């Protein structure tokens, strides 16, 4: 059983070959980090998984079924920018997905249904450490808080696959460590497969269960258009990281810091969240 099965995938833009014969099977609940030099087609690959672009050749299966030709709620996404809606409050952003899913004409819920949804949204916000900012607009949040919000917004849809394109690239190292702890916890608790593009090798190796490297085998300027990037390395982290289980090597603490409280507090405490997660995980 694979969550995502990609076979002989090519992507060309006009004459330019971007991806060349990429094949990879991604198991359910794995956390794949995608690294590679700038311009090698990582974002393009993610867009293909999202359904935002169609492959020139090859095919993508999701849970054994062909990928729908357009983005849908089974695949969530967080970009480096533009992931949240500037015209909605933090709470409105998190409620938007479920509201639109339930109300196909107005895209809004009212009365008791709305209150229930708002409670669920508040719980999700608390889980990503945004409690207290519900009524702010995204422009009033820091970069790190905006990315937490984007994560919360995507997770409300309970996607099978979460796609992240350099989601933490613009954050400073301290904030990034906090949000890494959050990301790891979410991956452990929410039944989803994660594919994350990153430029930061350390981030790739601290978070992922598998690190995949894209590279152009031929990268001389005159060859660049005619040869795309291939999958050049595929590293499974040892000892294996499995979602829902921690290895003795995993730690949410930053090396060199002995006081874990600020991180844990910022990421929301695991203990509090546990009851909720069990209660609300519908998928097996």
């Amino acid at each position, binding site marked *: 059983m694979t969550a995502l099965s990609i076979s002989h995938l090519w992507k060309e833009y006009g004459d330019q070959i971007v991806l060349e014969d990429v094949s990879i099977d991604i198991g359910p609940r794995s956390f794949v980090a995608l690294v590679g030099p700038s311009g090698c087609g990582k974002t393009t690959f993610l867009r293909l998984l999202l359904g935002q672009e169609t492959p020139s050749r090859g095919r993508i299966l999701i849970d054994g079924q062909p990928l729908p030709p357009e983005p849908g709620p089974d695949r969530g996404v967080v970009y480096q920018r533009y*992931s949240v*809606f500037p015209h909605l409050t933090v709470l409105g952003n998190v409620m*938007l997905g479920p509201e639109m899913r339930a109300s196909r004409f107005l895209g809004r819920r009212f009365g008791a249904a709305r209150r229930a949804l708002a409670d669920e949204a508040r719980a999700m916000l608390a889980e990503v450490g945004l409690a207290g900012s519900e009524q702010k607009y995204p422009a009033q949040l820091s970069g790190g808080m905006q990315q937490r919000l984007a994560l919360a*917004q995507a997770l409300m849809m309970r996607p099978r696959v979460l796609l992240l394109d350099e989601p933490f690239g613009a954050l400073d190292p301290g904030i990034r460590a906090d949000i890494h702890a959050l990301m790891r916890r979410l991956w452990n608790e929410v039944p989803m497969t994660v594919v994350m593009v990153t430029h930061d090798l350390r981030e790739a190796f601290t978070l992922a269960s598998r690190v995949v490297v894209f590279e152009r085998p031929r990268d001389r300027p005159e060859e660049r258009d005619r040869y795309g990037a291939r999958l050049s390395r595929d590293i499974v982290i040892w000892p294996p990281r499995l979602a829902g289980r921690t290895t003795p090597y995993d730690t949410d603490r930053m090396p060199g810091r002995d006081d874990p409280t600020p991180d844990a507090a910022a990421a929301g405490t695991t203990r509090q969240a546990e009851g909720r997660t069990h209660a609300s995980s519908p998928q097996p």
Partner: protein
Amino acid sequence: MRAINIRPGRGTALVLGLLPFAALAVAYLAGSALRLAENPSDKLLPALTTLAASIDLLAFTPDRRTGDYLLWADTAASLTRLAWGLGIAASLALVLGLLAGVLPVMRALLAPFVAFVSMVPPLALLPILFIVMGLGETSKIALIVIGITPILIRDLMLTATALPREMIVKAETLSASSWLIALRVVLPQVMPRLIDSLRLQIGPAFLFLIAAEAISSDAGLGYRIFLVRRYLAMEVIFPYVAWITLLAVLLDLALSSLRRRMFPWAEVGR
């Protein structure tokens, strides 16, 4: 210190802002005094007292023939036409601009046509409008609508298509249909821009209104100005021009504050 780094304080800025107005007033008064000294019956730059008497007659004395207060009757007639024109133009622009901004097929259908139509000089259409729609209110409102709608549509279309692609894709991953994307993602984000471009179109809207009123009407600010032009009645024309300008400024301020109140999020990011 470089000139680009010298910033006026609040008081200085106020004084500087008032300076051109004061200069204009002084220039008028001096010119008026000079001309009247030379020829007491000069009509071009009437004295302040003449202006005041004329304003009193226009705004606060009922007209002998109709019993109306001319200024207010003209204002009501003109503002009604303007409101219809702006309202119809804004609604049309919202629907068509949103359609073309959200759906590529509608964009392919509408964009070239709207671009073409926006180049038709509306005033050249005025005779046709009068012939087809008669000399009543319809043709005047139609001129305003024809004059400003294409630009509003194009502006909204550009604003809608300029929204980051990522945002639309994000909405798709949140299970939005095309309709819901238009309703909950694009519409709220283009509304502030619609109000702003409406503000920019107030000037042209008045232009078309006055042009239409000048040719055929029995009330209205433009009608009055062109009526008294024959008698060189500057003491009527000047107050009317000032009044029209003031109305436009007030309308602009009202729309701006409407935008601030309805879309507080648009201010946060500024």
